[in-house]
C-alpha cells in the first residue's frame, strides 16, 4: 500500500534526505511552501542543471520503505494524523497508552525447580529458576544466626534482606545474545543492555524483598532427627513451627538454598525489562524447593524427591514493572532550533522501533495487591530526557495500576 502522505516525496526533493526536511514537509503538507536552509540552494541549482538528463520522478513510498528510510517522521506522522477524526495510533497499531497483552506459562521446564515463559507481543523470554545448596561452611565470614523466632519486627526483616544480599543467595542473569534480534548475536560478552537488565532485576529482587529468606534456610535440628516423624520433616525447612523442640537442642543453620535465576530471550521486540521481571516473578511463584534435611554424618544436605515446598514469595507481594518511552516531535538535532512547539507522546510498552527513536524512558514498579488494594510504588526509574515531570509521573501511576491488573490476571 502507498503511504498516505503523498508529500513524503519532498524529503528527497529538497531535504537531501535528512530528516530535518522530512519533518518540515510533514508539518506543512505542501511541497512548494517548504522552506529550506541556504546550504541547499546550490544543490537545487545542481539538480536543475541535470533535469535534462532525467525528469524528476515523483517518489512516493510504501509504508515499509518510508519506515526504513526515515523512521522518526514515519512514527510521527502515525501519531499525528491529518484528519482529527482518526485517533493517533502508533506504527504497531496500538494507542499510545495501550500495552501488549501478556501471556504467561509456568513450569514448562523439567530441569528447573521453577520456570516461566512470558510473551508480550513479539517479546518472548524464558526464565528458569534453579536451586543449589550452599553449605554455610562455604561462606567466607559467615555469621551464624541464633534466633529461631520467626522474624516479625522491622529490624529482623532488614536483617533478613541483609542476609540475602550478604550471601548472594539470588543470582539473576539475563542472556540477550541468543539471536533474539538481529543486533543480539551470540559469541560476544554480555552487552551493556544485558548487564544493565541483570543488575536492575538483581537490585529490584532485593529492594522488594520478593523472596523470603526463611524458605532458603536449611536447618539441622537434632531433636527433630531424634524422633523421625515425617511431621518434623517440615521442621528442617520451616523453622516457625518447631519452636517447641528448639529448647531441647537448638537447631542449627547448616546451609542455604541459592536461587540461580536465568533468563533467556527467545524473541526480542522492545521493552525487555517488563517482560524479564514478569518472568522472574512468575518463575519464582512457580518454584518448589525439595525438602532438605541436614545429614550430619555425610555433612551434606539430603533432599527428598517426593516432598517439595513451594518457595515463599508472599511477603514481597506482586510488584509489576511498567515501562514507557517518551517520543518527541523533534529529534535532538532540531530540538535546539525549534524548541517551542515540541510535542511529545508517552508510549507505553515500546517496541523495538519506538525504543530506537526515544531517548527518555520511565519504569515504574507498582504493587496494588497490598491491604485495601491501594497502590504501592516499589520503584521508579527514569532515564534521559526532560519531558516527564511530576504531573506526568502522577498520571503514569494510573497507567501502571492498569498494567498491574493485566499482569495479575495473566498470572492467575
Amino acid at each position, binding site marked *: 500500500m502507498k503511504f498516505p502522505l503523498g508529500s513524503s516525496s519532498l524529503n528527497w526533493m529538497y531535504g537531501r534526505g535528512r530528516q530535518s526536511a522530512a519533518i518540515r514537509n510533514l508539518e506543512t503538507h505542501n511541497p512548494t511552501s517548504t522552506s529550506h536552509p541556504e546550504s541547499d540552494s546550490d544543490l537545487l541549482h545542481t539538480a536543475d542543471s541535470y533535469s535534462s538528463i532525467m525528469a524528476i520522478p515523483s517518489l512516493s513510498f510504501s509504508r515499509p520503505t518510508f519506515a526504513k528510510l526515515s523512521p522518526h517522521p514515519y512514527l510521527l506522522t502515525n501519531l499525528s494524523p491529518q484528519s482529527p477524526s482518526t485517533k493517533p495510533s502508533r506504527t504497531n497499531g496500538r494507542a499510545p497508552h495501550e500495552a501488549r497483552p501478556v501471556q504467561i506459562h509456568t513450569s514448562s521446564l523439567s530441569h528447573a525447580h521453577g520456570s516461566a515463559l512470558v510473551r508480550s507481543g513479539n517479546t518472548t523470554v524464558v526464565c528458569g529458576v534453579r536451586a543449589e545448596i550452599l553449605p554455610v561452611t562455604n561462606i567466607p565470614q559467615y555469621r551464624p544466626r541464633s534466633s529461631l523466632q520467626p522474624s516479625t519486627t522491622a529490624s529482623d526483616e532488614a536483617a533478613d534482606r541483609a542476609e540475602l544480599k550478604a550471601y548472594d543467595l539470588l543470582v539473576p542473569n539475563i542472556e540477550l545474545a541468543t539471536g533474539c534480534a538481529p543486533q543480539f548475536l551470540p559469541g560476544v560478552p554480555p552487552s551493556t543492555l544485558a548487564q544493565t537488565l541483570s543488575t536492575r532485576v538483581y537490585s529490584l529482587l532485593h529492594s522488594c524483598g520478593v523472596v523470603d529468606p526463611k524458605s532458603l534456610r536449611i536447618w539441622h535440628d537434632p531433636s527433630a532427627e531424634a524422633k523421625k516423624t515425617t511431621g518434623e520433616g517440615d521442621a528442617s525447612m520451616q523453622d516457625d513451627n518447631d519452636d517447641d523442640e528448639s529448647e531441647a537442642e537448638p537447631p542449627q543453620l547448616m546451609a542455604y538454598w541459592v536461587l540461580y535465576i536465568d533468563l533467556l530471550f527467545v524473541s526480542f521486540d522492545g521493552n525487555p525489562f517488563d517482560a524479564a521481571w514478569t518472568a522472574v516473578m512468575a518463575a519464582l511463584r512457580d518454584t518448589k524447593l525439595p525438602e532438605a534435611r541436614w545429614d550430619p554424618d*555425610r*555433612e*551434606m544436605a*539430603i533432599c527428598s524427591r517426593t516432598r517439595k515446598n513451594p518457595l515463599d514469595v508472599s511477603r514481597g507481594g506482586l510488584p509489576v514493572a511498567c515501562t514507557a518511552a517518551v517520543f518527541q516531535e523533534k529529534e535532538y538535532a532540531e530540538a535546539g532550533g525549534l524548541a517551542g512547539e515540541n510535542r511529545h507522546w508517552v508510549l507505553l510498552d515500546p517496541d523495538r522501533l519506538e525504543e530506537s527513536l526515544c531517548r527518555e524512558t520511565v519504569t515504574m514498579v507498582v504493587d496494588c495487591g497490598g491491604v485495601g488494594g491501594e497502590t504501592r510504588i516499589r520503584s521508579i526509574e527514569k532515564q534521559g530526557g526532560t519531558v516527564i515531570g511530576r504531573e506526568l509521573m502522577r498520571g503514569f501511576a494510573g497507567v501502571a495500576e492498569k498494567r498491574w491488573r493485566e499482569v495479575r490476571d495473566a498470572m492467575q
Partner: protein
Amino acid sequence: MASTQHALLSPAELAYLHASLSLTPPIRPDGRAANQFRPLAAETGILPGTNGSARICFADGTEAIVGVKAEVERTRRGDGGREDGVEYVSSRLEGDFVEGVSSGEGAIAAVDEADRVGESEWVELSVEIPGARDDDAGTVFLAAMLAEALLAGGEFAKKLWINRRFHWKLYLDILLISPPLSYPLPLLSLTTHLALLATRLPRLKSEGDEDPFFDDDWAAAPYLYARKDGKATARPPVSLLVMAVGNNIIFDPSKEELAVADVALAVSVGEETATTTAAEADEAQQQQQPLGRNLRLLSVRTIDPPSRLTPPGVPNATNSAYGAATTQKQPEARAAESEAVEGVWKAPRGGAKALVMAALVQKALMRGGVADEVLDALDAVDLVA
C-alpha cells in the same frame, strides 16, 4: 572453518585435479596409489619427561609430537552424584562437592557392577594447531574425534583405574609443530597412537583401597597397553581420512586432493582387545576369525569437504566482458550452469549417497585393508619409553 582450510586452486586446476582423480586408476598429484599413505618417519620416547611420547613426520613436511603425562587423582564419586544425575561424565561444571562422600550405597553399587570402572573424565586430550585458537571449531572437532575414538567402549578409561578411591588422570597433549599443510587428522591420530603404545605407568605397590604408592623403578613400569613378546595385545585406535572422488576411494588425501572431494570421512578403527567387555560379550562368537586383525569400527565422522567452498568456473557460454557479473546472484545464470559443463569446475552441492559412505567405511575396515597395513607399519616402530 579450520577443518577445511582453503586450497588456493583455480577453478581450472580444480577441474583438472578432479578429472584425474576420477580416472581408473586415479592419478594422484604425488603419484601415490589410491590407498597409499604418505611415507612417514616416526620415533617414540622423544620427551623424557613424559610417560610416553612420539613424533611423526610426514614426507610432505607436516610434523606432530604427542606427549602423555599421567597423574594420580582421587576419584570423585558420590551416592548423591548417582541418583541426582550429577555423574562424572558431564561434571565439568560441577564443583568438587561429592568429594568426601566416598562411602555409601552408590559407591558400593558402582563397584558391584564392575570391579573396575573408568570415566571419560579421566582422560584430558588437547590439540594444538599452529595459527588456530584452541577453542576454534576445527580444533575442537579434531580433539572430540580423537577422544571419542579413544574412549569408545569405555575400555581405555578402565586401564586408568587404580583402586576404588584413586585413578590415573591422563593428559594427552597433541601438537602439530608444522603449519597445517594438509588436514592433520591422520598425522595426529597416528602420532597419538604411537605415544600411547609407548606410554608406561609406574608399577603399583600398594594394595586394596589404601592410598596408592608406586615402584620407582622405571624399568619395571608396565606399558599402558600390555605387551607380550614385544607386540601389544591391545592397541589404541587410529583414525583414517578417506575421501571419494567419482568412483574412486582415496586414502590420506593431501590438501589439494581434499579440495575436490565429493565426500570425506574420518574413520576411527580399533583392534579387538583380548579382554571382552560386557559390550562385546554377545558379539564374541563373531570375533573368532583366526587370521588378520580383528578390527573394530569405533567412530565415523563426516569431514566438511572444502570443495563446497571452492570458486566455480564460468563456462564460455555465459562468460563475457561482464564475467564478474555473471557470478552474481542470478538464479537463471546459476541454474543454467548447474547442468554440469564438461571441464568446468563447479562446487558440489548436497551430500553423498549412503552407499558411497558405506563403501568408504568398508574399504577402510577390510581385512588386510588399509587399516591393517597402517597398524602393521606402526608395529614396526620400536618403542622407547
